[in-house]
């Protein structure tokens, strides 16, 4: 059973927090601290979903999203953007780059997991049907 999530995040504190919350909720976390290693890791681990920071050194989030979308094996893997850019237009831009949704930084530990699963988990009542 696949429980892996790929987190692409360069900030150590943020990475730690997300990893903690996700693992606490039953996920396995694969971390990558820049875009290139993120794409590599995604190809290698076939995650359930990818949490992607936009503001990355070198290859930024938009570029990583575009690169991931080019991979046939990852075409269906949901990408959730985690960003502190919350300006009008940012949202449209990241969704256009291939993300299914985005979460604003700073994340709220209370609701973080419930929020992200909206983007990739099936609704329980839909799942039954």
């Amino acid at each position, binding site marked *: 059973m696949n429980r892996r999530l790929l987190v692409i995040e360069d900030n150590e504190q943020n990475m730690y927090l997300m990893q903690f919350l996700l693992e606490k*909720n*039953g996920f396995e976390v694969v971390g990558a601290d820049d875009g290139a290693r993120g794409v590599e890791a995604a190809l290698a681990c076939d995650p359930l979903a990818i949490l992607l920071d936009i503001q990355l050194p070198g290859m930024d989030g938009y570029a990583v999203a575009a690169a991931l979308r080019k991979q046939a094996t990852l075409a269906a893997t949901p990408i959730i953007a985690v960003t502190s850019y919350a300006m009008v237009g940012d949202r449209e831009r990241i969704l256009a780059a291939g993300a299914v949704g985005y979460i604003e930084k700073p994340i709220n530990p209370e609701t973080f997991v419930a929020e992200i699963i909206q983007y990739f*988990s099936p609704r329980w009542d839909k799942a039954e049907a």
Partner: protein
Amino acid sequence: MRILSVDDKEDNRYLVEALLKGHGFEVSSAAHGAEALALLAAEPFDLILSDILMPVMDGFELCRRVKADPGLRHIPLVVYTATYTGSQDEAFALKIGASGFVQKPCEPEALIAIIREVLAASAASDCTVLPEPAGEEEVLKLYSERLVRKLEQKMLQLEQEAQARRKTEEILKQSEMNYRSLFNSIRDAILVSDLERRIINCNQAFVDLFGYTLAEIAGQHTLVVYEREEPYQQLGVILNSCMDDPALLHHISFKKKDGQVFPGEVNVFRLRNDEGVPAGFIGLIRDVTDRVRFEEQQKLLESQLHQAQKMESIGRLAGGVAHDYNNMLSVILGYAQIALNKTKPGAPVHDHLLQIVDAAQRSAGMTRQLLGFARKQTVVPQVLDLNKTVEGMLKMLRRLIGEDVALTWRPAADLWPVLIDPSQVDQIVTNLCVNARDAVKGRGAIVIETGTTCCEAAFCAQHAGATAGEYVTLSVRDNGCGIGPVLLDKIFEPFFTTKGSGQGTGLGLAVVYGIVQQNKGFVAVRSQPDQGTTFTLHLPRRVSGGAQGALDASEPIQRGQGETILVVEDEEAILHSTSALLTSLGYRVLAAARSTEAIRLAHAEPGGVRLLLADVVMPEMGGPDLARLLLTFYPGLKCLFMSGYADSVITDSGVAGNQHRLIRKPFSIQELAAKVRAALAS
């Protein structure tokens, strides 16, 4: 000097002879006047000592004849009489020639003195000048008068004596009759013996009680009616010191003719003869079998009632404590888990917290057991074939008791059905097998057996809590160390354990007791130290078609078959009760108070979770979100939500329109069972 003694009584003759010979006289004796005359004719005598009243010829006649005989008249005659003692008699005697008159009894010295005096007077006198005897006619007249008077007196005396005797006889006869009827109508058996304790007499009650007739037992030693010699001898010792005390009852066992032994009470009195000298013993024996049995039964019932009351109050106490304890445990467990989530695995405090959680969880297990004993477990009784239920457990039991203990399973053919919650059967059999395993100390044999039995009222009188009727029995027997009689009373008490500290909670048998009580049955224990123990559970036969038990709801309860259900509920009390309900319904339950715990449990469950039963509103993550998260990992998972909230809240949580996936708190076991079943079937 030669003296002729005349007396019809041999004793008197002997006494007089001895007396006179002792004083140097020669003595000849005659029994009456005629014999005396014959002797006088043959030998010379110096003195005649004669009684008066004698057969053949009396003293008066002898005197008259002697004095009339010229050859004999010189011999003095002394009258020695007890009968003729009147002054007229004396005068008459002297008149017909007697030389002296002595009344019997007489001091020997006085008699000798008179004899010597008469002899001396006789020697001094000239026999030739002896006065002529009185005229024949006068003498005869006087003699006749004396005789008639004597005769009249004698007749009167005899008549009086006869009357007195008749009266005495009458009284005696009456007394004898009274005694006889009393003797035979007394309810107690009476046995009369002599001083050597040989039986002389017995009454009808004795005959009825012991089965011996008087003829059979007369002359036998009294020991024959006692069971054993030792207490009989002890009784003898006691009696020697305090006999004849009517208040003193001795308890001893007797033996009937047919060998039957019975407990009795005996009262022993000394039998005395006319002079008050002990002549034997009288024993009053009462059969106290009924009373002893009644008392024993009463005592047994009292102690059993006492025991039952004790168990009841311990149960109430335990139940109350368990409930509060459970609430506190929820807090300990809850916070320990929260803290656990805030520490990293591997950190020392993480391990410490895990220990706390583990201990709290084991404590919660104990309180669950306690609630079982207190009969506060929520149960779902169903009609069962115990054979099948036990059979299903055998594999688990074999693992439980280990390879070195032989487990034998002996199911009875045609076993009657019983009404019981199968999870309770699990609990009972597991607890008993664990005890049996510990009793055989790892090596021995355990036999599990089923059977049917019909308990009579008599049997129930011996077993408190048992009511007459048909029962299915389930017994677990071991050949282990056994239980001493002193401990037998205590084994069902909660927290009573013989196992070492940390090895037993002392709840196993208490739970067995509670469960069996709850199912209107009872437990019988037989144990011999070093021989082994058998616990036999009696569960009432379930008569098919009969009314459903009190615990049955009107609609049949749908049960699980061990499917794993993950229950998530932040209110500990509800979490526990719901878990207990589901366990009792036959499900395997994973209980979590928080979503993260739920996820951890789900991941740790090798067989996978079939159903998530979660509260709708919870901190961190509500039921629907949790369901969504878990569905990510387990796409086949079924979901059911619990809610105590208003419909609007549920709508917001995404459960609206799915009322069939929602169960409202509080819910009944039937509702829960049905909803769970339906959710699993979807």
